[in-house]
């Protein structure tokens, strides 16, 4: 057992108190794991609750409420985080009620990112605090029992919510000791379990919200209702690079049925120093407020406004404590222009990010040079729940509710914009209908708060699908050239990567294959733009993985090697005798997922009717590899099966983790085949699903088989890692199926809508 100091996190453990309860009953079946749902069990709520720390309270009858700190957007943290607490607490999972915690930096330390969902960091960063929360509470219960029974606390054992002192024959449920436990000082040190002792972690539990989801209970931001609530919708400029000049028919709009007001809204103060997640699309837009959604939708269509070009600007943005200068040009941008700008810069000298050995000489002396160019378009997030936010500003109090990944980062922005102190702002984090990075940029929360302040009423701001898709924080567009030098023995001597994009470079200079080749050069560039972009499920990796893994496939073929063996050879080199010092991956773990996927997919047994592609990648502290099996039916690629191997350390909730990996695979195949947003004179060229092609059921793999490496290492990311490499697996399988390499995403352009 590991002794862990609690002091780093003591702030969240200090408050202990009794809370009023009420003998309510709660239908329980969805809390239990793997049970037939017909056997509805009823969990009786206690008369009194005892709050042990920010993460949990114990009822006098032994029922435990665990508060899940981070917002849930489908990654299963609302189930898996409480599982970690329950594990260390030694409570029967059937006696656990899970609630979404409120947002509170006081209760959940970690600054602005204490309750952040994104970057696949939730379980990784909360692993220790969640365990400590459970272990601390267990220790306090033990102390309480020790004092009551007058025995040493070390002799007390716990199991399934029961304390036992074997020698004296004493035994008590947690509920009986809860009132005494809250009086116990928070221990200085706690013991954490060894992985072999886990009985909840690693054992699949059903989604705690499963029953509410399948019965259509209100849980999402868009479902939020409040007495007297008005509906607001925005009319944003028609093109990036434009902003509002005037509203021309405000009186006519206000006279429409159910309409309360129409007015301009400036999203941020001009003087405000923005943070990284303050990205938004338009400086100012029109807002229509009314009684019901349909009335506001009708009025929104009738709004006539004049728009004007933005003025070009240079801003200093606080990028996680580092000042970064951001230039915003004023032109109306085009995809075609972007592409020619990229090509122009690709041909010029660019910023060197890493150089090992002597790549110039290696390429000069090469017997053969393979050079391939890869590109990817902008992508819209298309969360199924469009952006929305509830706000109620009453005097200097702000109450916000809605789907957001990062309440901590938008709080100061709202405070600045409304001139209301930060401590007067409260968030309720609703379940999110998807996030994928989009909801880390919650300018819509600011907008809702401004609107509520203006109309002096509770307001729900709802983006239509068109608003959501055309007021996006898109995945940037990227291009990369990969070059490989082979000597006269057909051995790889050098790799050269040039990568750039609008408005950022996708390059990760220190990732594989860096470290595995003697001569290596990585260079990059970026082009300023006024089209808003941001994190999209595995930012930059979601392009680089596909490019790199397609390229390695082609190099392997040129060298006459099996694609998996070729990668393993490179990784062996990186493990045994790495080139350079700043390689940011563990070659051994990387090789392990490739070997696992090779075995699980039975790579060696080839079936001539199936075309297979392999791909692997490291990002967000985890390793993922896929083998994708494809056939062609009526000229279209059909994904028969994906075999996937992942190393993300300890897997907390295996079935949910599998679901997440399956989702990443399906989402990745969809984006590889169809995902694309283009711009013409600043106007997004797709605004709804009749134009923006999404993967449909018939296009999903017929089978997905997910395997986790069992290594007992503390958990790392999972939401993102399976996503980037699937692009390469699709491209490599398509090559086998069609004889054509895929260089430009999306691979199936102009395919018809199936809806």
């Amino acid at each position: 057992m590991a002794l862990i100091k609690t002091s780093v996190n003591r702030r969240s453990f200090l408050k202990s108190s009794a809370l009023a309860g009420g003998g309510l009953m709660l239908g329980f079946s969805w809390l239990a794991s793997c049970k037939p749902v017909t056997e509805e069990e009823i969990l009786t709520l206690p008369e009194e609750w005892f709050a042990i720390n920010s993460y949990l309270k114990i009822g006098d009858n032994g029922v435990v409420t665990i508060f899940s700190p981070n917002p849930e957007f489908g990654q299963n943290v609302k189930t898996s985080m409480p599982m970690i607490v329950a594990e260390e607490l030694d409570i029967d999972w059937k006696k656990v009620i899970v609630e979404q915690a409120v947002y509170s930096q006081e209760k959940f330390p970690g600054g602005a990112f204490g309750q952040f969902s994104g970057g696949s960091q939730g379980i990784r960063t909360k692993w220790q605090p969640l365990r400590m929360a459970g272990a601390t509470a267990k220790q306090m219960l033990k102390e309480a029992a020790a004092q009551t029974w007058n025995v040493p606390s070390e002799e007390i054992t716990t199991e399934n919510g029961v304390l036992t002192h074997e020698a004296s024959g004493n035994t008590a449920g947690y509920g009986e000791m809860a009132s005494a436990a809250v009086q116990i000082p928070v221990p200085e040190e706690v013991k954490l379990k060894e992985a072999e002792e886990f009985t909840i972690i690693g054992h699949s539990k059903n989604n705690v919200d499963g029953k509410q989801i399948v019965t259509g209970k209100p849980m999402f931001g868009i479902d939020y209702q409040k007495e007297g609530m008005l509906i607001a919708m925005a009319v944003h400029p028609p093109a990036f690079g434009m902003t509002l000049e005037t509203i021309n028919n405000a009186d006519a709009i206000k006279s429409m049925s159910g309409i309360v007001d129409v007015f301009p809204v400036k999203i941020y103060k001009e003087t405000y120093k923005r943070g990284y997640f303050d990205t938004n699309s338009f400086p100012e837009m029109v807002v229509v407020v009314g009684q019901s959604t349909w009335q506001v939708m009708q009025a929104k269509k009738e709004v006539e406004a004049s728009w004007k070009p933005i003025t070009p600007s240079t801003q200093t943005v606080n990028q996680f404590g580092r000042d970064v200068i951001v230039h915003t040009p004023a032109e109306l941008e085009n995809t075609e222009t972007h592409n020619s700008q990229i090509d122009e810069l690709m041909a010029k000298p660019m910023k060197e990010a890493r150089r090992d050995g002597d790549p110039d000489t290696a390429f000069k002396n090469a017997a053969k040079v393979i050079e391939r160019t890869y590109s990817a378009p902008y992508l819209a997030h298309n969360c199924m729940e469009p952006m929305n936010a509830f706000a109620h500003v009453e005097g200097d109090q702000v109450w916000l509710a809605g789907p957001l990944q990062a309440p901590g980062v938008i709080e100061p922005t709202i405070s600045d914009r409304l001139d209301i102190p930060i401590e007067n702002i409260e968030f309720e984090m609703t379940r999110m209908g998807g996030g994928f990075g989009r909801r880390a940029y919650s300018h819509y929360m600011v907008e809702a708060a401004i609107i509520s302040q203006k109309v002096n009423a509770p307001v729900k701001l709802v983006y239509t699908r068109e608003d959501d898709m055309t007021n996006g924080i898109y995945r940037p567009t990227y291009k990369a050239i990969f070059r490989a030098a082979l000597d006269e023995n057909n051995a790889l001597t050098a790799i050269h990567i040039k990568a750039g994009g609008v408005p950022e470079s996708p390059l990760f200079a220190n990732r594989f294959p860096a470290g595995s080749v003697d001569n290596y050069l990585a260079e990059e560039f970026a082009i300023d733009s006024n089209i808003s972009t941001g994190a999209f499920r595995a930012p930059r990796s979601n392009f680089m993985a596909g490019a790199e893994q397609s390229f390695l496939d082609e190099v392997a073929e040129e060298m006459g090697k099996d694609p998996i063996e070729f990668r393993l050879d490179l990784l062996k080199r990186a493990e045994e005798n790495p080139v350079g010092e700043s390689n940011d991956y563990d070659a051994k773990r990387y090789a392990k997922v490739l070997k696992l996927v090779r075995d699980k997919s039975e790579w060696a047994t080839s079936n001539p009717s199936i075309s297979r592609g392999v791909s692997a990648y490291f990002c967000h502290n985890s390793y993922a590899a896929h083998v994708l099996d494809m056939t062609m039916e009526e000229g279209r690629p059909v994904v028969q099966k994906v075999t996937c191997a992942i190393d993300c350390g300890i897997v907390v909730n295996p079935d949910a983790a599998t679901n997440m990996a399956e989702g990443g695979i399906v989402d990745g195949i969809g984006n590889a085949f169809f995902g694309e947003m283009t711009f013409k004179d600043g106007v997004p060229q797709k605004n709804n699903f009749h134009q923006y092609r999404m993967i449909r059921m018939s296009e999903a793999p017929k089978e997905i088989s997910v395997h986790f490496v069992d290594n007992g290492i503390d958990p790392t990311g999972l939401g993102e890692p399976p996503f980037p490499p699937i692009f390469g697996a699709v491209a490599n399988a398509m090559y086998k199926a069609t004889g054509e390499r895929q260089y430009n995403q999306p691979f199936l352009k102009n395919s018809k809508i199936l809806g």
Partner: protein
Amino acid sequence: MAKFSLTINKKNVEVDVDPSTPILWVLRDHLNLVGTKYGCGIAQCGACTIHLDGNAMRSCILPIDKVGNQKITTIEGLSNHGDHPLQKAWIEHDVPQCGYCQSGQIMSAAALLKENKTPSDEDIDIAMNGNICRCGTYTRIKAAIKTAAK
């Protein structure tokens, strides 16, 4: 505005709304039945699927004045205790990720199973192609439909 009486989940309800109001917004804004979701508003995503006299229907393009006396069933009324075979199968397979698309998925699947007790994979694909899941839960949805069909 006009008064309409509707039968929703076996109950009679009255609403006073603009006759062009889609049933989706009648349910969500006026009757507080928010299980039926808004995803696109143009019959492309299936999030708003309800049953109209037992048939799957995109409620986002169904104006209230076209309903007449056809009976509406929403996810809230699919079963009495959340125990429709599909709802049970959905939990058994732990289908949802974010969950937003799932009421629409279940309503589409329920309409399919009513017509076709033993759907093939292809039947399922055809019936479910109108329902988008950005989280990518399609393989589990299909497995759950097959479990429910047993």
